[in-house]
């Protein structure tokens, strides 16, 4: 069972002790990206198995209906993917929000 995404091959990642901030560096030259609050939660769930239902888990954590956040979540992970900080894993159907 895998996660929906994994960090990009040239991404360094550090999670704060309280889990509310994720620091992602594009290696080797930067930049350094800070994900706070909901953004950190999205990163954590996107990179945590199982892939199935990961957006629903985010919705539950932020107390919102899944359909209300799915579009924003999709746009967010698309942005991180475009920066090559996140890479979709395996069965893409599982990785899609709402799957």
């Amino acid at each position, binding site marked *: 069972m895998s996660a929906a995404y994994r*960090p990009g091959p*040239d*991404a*360094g*990642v*550090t999670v*704060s002790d309280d889990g509310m901030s994720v*620091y992602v*560096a594009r*290696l*080797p*030259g*930067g*930049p*350094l*990206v*800070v*994900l*706070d*609050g*909901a*953004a*950190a939660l*999205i990163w954590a769930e996107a990179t945590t198995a199982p892939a199935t239902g990961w957006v629903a888990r985010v919705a539950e954590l932020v107390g919102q209906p899944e359909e209300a956040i799915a579009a*924003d979540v999709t746009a*967010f992970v698309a*942005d991180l993917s475009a920066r090559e900080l996140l890479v979709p894993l395996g069965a893409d159907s599982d990785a899609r929000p709402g799957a």
Partner: protein
Amino acid sequence: MATHEATAPPEVGATVPLEVRIGFAHACLQWVADRCGADLLHVKGAALDPTLVPGRGFSDADVLARPEHVRMLLDELRHHGWELINSFAYGSSFEHSATLRHSDFGLLDLHRIYPGTGPTPELAFDTLWSEHTTTVLGGVECAVPARDAQAALLLLHAARGGSDPKAAHDVEWVWTSADETRRARILEWVDRLDAGLGFSVITGTLDDHRDDPAYDLWRVASRGGTRMEEWRARVRAARGLRAKLTVASRSVLVNVEHLTIVRGRPVSRAEIVAEFFGRPARGLREQVSRRARGRRR
């Protein structure tokens, strides 16, 4: 969505803890080393086994490179946003490390030698490398020395720390409070690394090594001394007449790199000239005041 790049604006940069930036500095170094085929070991700071000195703080990243790979690494790092701010010759009395700075990842000390280890820098690195392990820093698996080797290296670092409370704390944790078994394991590494002279500072037996050319370097580093004593020790420790003359000539040249950091901007010719004359004068003043203090005792 709360995503921001922590590059330029200071108010945003301030939200990234220093230890996070330093972790990424290690990760960056390992990334570069892996791709250019260089061997390096991450030492001290974030790379230190956390059970050796719990809660120990750090302010930069230290890496020890295989000596023959240092030039290649320096060249590579410059291509990835690292700026050289202090070269080996002017880094310290031991001329062991160069300092680089990155706008995102902070300060890095790139060591070509770990002071006190030998018999040559190459063999010392081989010895450490032969039993290296890994730890994750900034999300990247980084090569580090074996735990007991880390303890020996930390103590050698503390031996140069003089009256620094952090050095004293390290010695207390890693050596003074260690049992015989643990000490024996550390001493085995001291032996393998030919580190008896530097380590004698820890055991209080430095003066048994008065005849060693590097004795004065360790004496000044561990007990303090004037700038003039420091340069005299560097000249004495340099091997061969040519090396001694090179060191001696540097003692009167101005470290423009250092001056640039102190001033925070490129220095003018007038400032270099002023520093040129100021340094020997400062050395003399220190020497004179030290002698005066000695007479008063």
